[in-house]
């Protein structure tokens, strides 16, 4: 690399990095993006659902050429025990709108497309390059990055850390702490391929309509966790995520947990005959508002998963990543256009803009949920799902006992499992965390 200097270096070509790089490049900044994979997307893993509104704010006409799989018309939330599921389905014809609200995507393909937009906007992307260290001047201000390519550091006015939840730069350079095991979930995922018409028939879909199943209960074996099944055009993304602290305490093997989910009688027939083509694993930030690190400093900002910007309650992550990347990009452009330096004070513009956005407001709303999930995982993910299933089964079966007896038996089972006081205090805690 020659001694050319960039306005901004973006570390990482995921959702937040691409959004930041695109925002700055399309406003005329000289942007260098570093990606350690062979191509943008080759290291990236997500479920994945794309929320159109946030991308539309960045690339308004993305539907013209972005690789989208299916637009979602149906959402299922299943509460499972070992042999059953009960839950809620929401399906609406309203979702068959011209500009659909949510799509399934395949991240590697999507990220290649998004990175293509960065290049079209004039950004430079350097792949197969791992950023190893931040370069600092004698006052400690960040002035660029060192990479695993030979040579001197690459210099820029500002470095955007979009390096993901397990980013090494920020943690090694003391800008933020390493994620704690109770603040990250390990998700494992398989890609199951099936012909398009088979997926359509199994889920009652036509054209490019899609369906999502999110499932919790005994499938996570008492750990705080969530299973998911997303329909893509000719494949199904199937996975399950559990807090790393839960896995470490229970010594459960994640691929065995995934196998259990896959073989559940409610899931197995949906996958029958599929060909599996990939097995992936990835950490998901789950710490919420309380785990957000310092977002900016002298010559740097942090965005997306690296900043723990993930809404675990609503399973939203990539939209928070995109929006934080976009806002960081806009703030940097504003500071640049005013001819000011990328100091910590000036970069606080990014934080104040982010605080005003849905990103931080939503995370504040659910700030107590992560602790609730961490400390009450056994009752929330095992005891209650089992009780609910028993009650539902008893209600549905007809074998001569009176309805009053059935109701009493169901209530007694809840009290026996959690005690009256336990039930009330669980309800209060959940209501408080949700408030």
């Amino acid at each position, binding site marked *: 690399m020659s001694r050319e200097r960039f306005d901004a270096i973006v570390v990482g070509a995921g959702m937040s990095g691409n959004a930041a790089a695109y925002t700055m490049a399309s406003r005329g900044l000289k942007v260098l993006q570093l990606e*350690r*994979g*062979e191509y943008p*997307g*080759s*290291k*990236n*893993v*997500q479920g*994945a659902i794309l929320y159109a509104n946030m991308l539309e704010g960045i690339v308004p006409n993305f539907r013209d050429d972005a690789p989208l799989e299916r637009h979602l018309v149906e959402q299922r939330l299943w509460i499972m025990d070992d042999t059953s599921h009960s839950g809620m389905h929401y399906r609406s014809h309203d979702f068959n709108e011209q500009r659909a609200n949510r799509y399934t995507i*395949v*991240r*590697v*393909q999507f*990220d290649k497309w998004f990175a293509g937009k960065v290049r079209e906007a004039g950004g430079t992307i350097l*792949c*197969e*390059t*791992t950023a190893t260290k931040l370069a600092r001047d004698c006052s400690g201000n960040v002035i660029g990055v060192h*990479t*695993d*390519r030979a040579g001197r550091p690459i210099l820029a006015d500002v470095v955007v850390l979009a390096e993901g*939840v*397990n980013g*090494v730069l920020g943690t090694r350079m003391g800008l933020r702490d*390493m*994620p*704690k*095991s109770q603040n*990250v979930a*390990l998700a*494992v995922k398989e*890609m*199951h391929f099936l012909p398009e018409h088979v997926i359509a028939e199994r889920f009652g879909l036509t054209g490019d309509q899609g369906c999502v199943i999110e499932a919790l209960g005994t499938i996570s074996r008492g750990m705080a966790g969530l299973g998911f099944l997303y329909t893509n055009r000719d*494949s199904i993304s199937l996975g399950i995520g559990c807090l*790393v602290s839960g*896995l*470490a305490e229970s*010594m*459960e*093997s*994640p*691929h065995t947990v995934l*196998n259990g989910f*896959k*073989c559940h009688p409610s899931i*197995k027939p949906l*996958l*029958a*005959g*599929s*060909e*599996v*083509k*990939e*097995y*992936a*694993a*990835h*950490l998901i930030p789950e710490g919420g508002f309380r785990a957000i690190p310092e977002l900016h400093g002298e010559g740097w900002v942090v965005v997306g998963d690296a900043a723990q910007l993930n809404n675990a309650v609503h399973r939203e992550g990539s939209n928070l990543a995109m929006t934080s990347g976009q806002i960081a990009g806009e703030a940097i452009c504003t500071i640049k256009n005013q001819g000011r330096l990328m100091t910590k004070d000036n970069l606080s513009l990014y934080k104040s803009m982010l605080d005003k956005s849905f990103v931080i407001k939503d995370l504040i709303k659910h700030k107590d949920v992560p602790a609730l999930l961490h400390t009450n995982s056994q009752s929330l993910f095992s005891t209650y799902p089992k009780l609910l299933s028993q009650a539902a089964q008893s209600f549905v079966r007809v074998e001569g006992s009176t309805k009053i007896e059935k109701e009493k038996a169901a209530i007694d089972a809840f009290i026996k499992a959690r005690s009256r006081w336990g039930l009330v205090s669980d309800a209060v805690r959940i209501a408080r965390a949700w408030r």
Partner: protein
Amino acid sequence: MSESSFEPIEEKLYWNRYLVDAGRPHIRVRRHLSPSASLRALTKICPANCYSFDDAGQVKVVTDGCLECGTCRVLCEATGEIDWNYPRGGFGILFKFG
């Protein structure tokens, strides 16, 4: 789903594409007398089964099938039990779908 619903992990990894940086493992386990609870947990919870016990009862790592998730880093880097890095640029797992 293929014939067996319980593919061994090695078979799952075979679905993936890797460019192994031969002779340059990106994670190392430091020498230890007896493994800590966190280090022992890795022999169970690493999603690619990279960690196992050797004959001497020490935990060892083979990084060829690593999915670069970072679980082992979260549990054992701060305690100094492992030396953790990403593979060199371009090497390691190369997701086709992600």
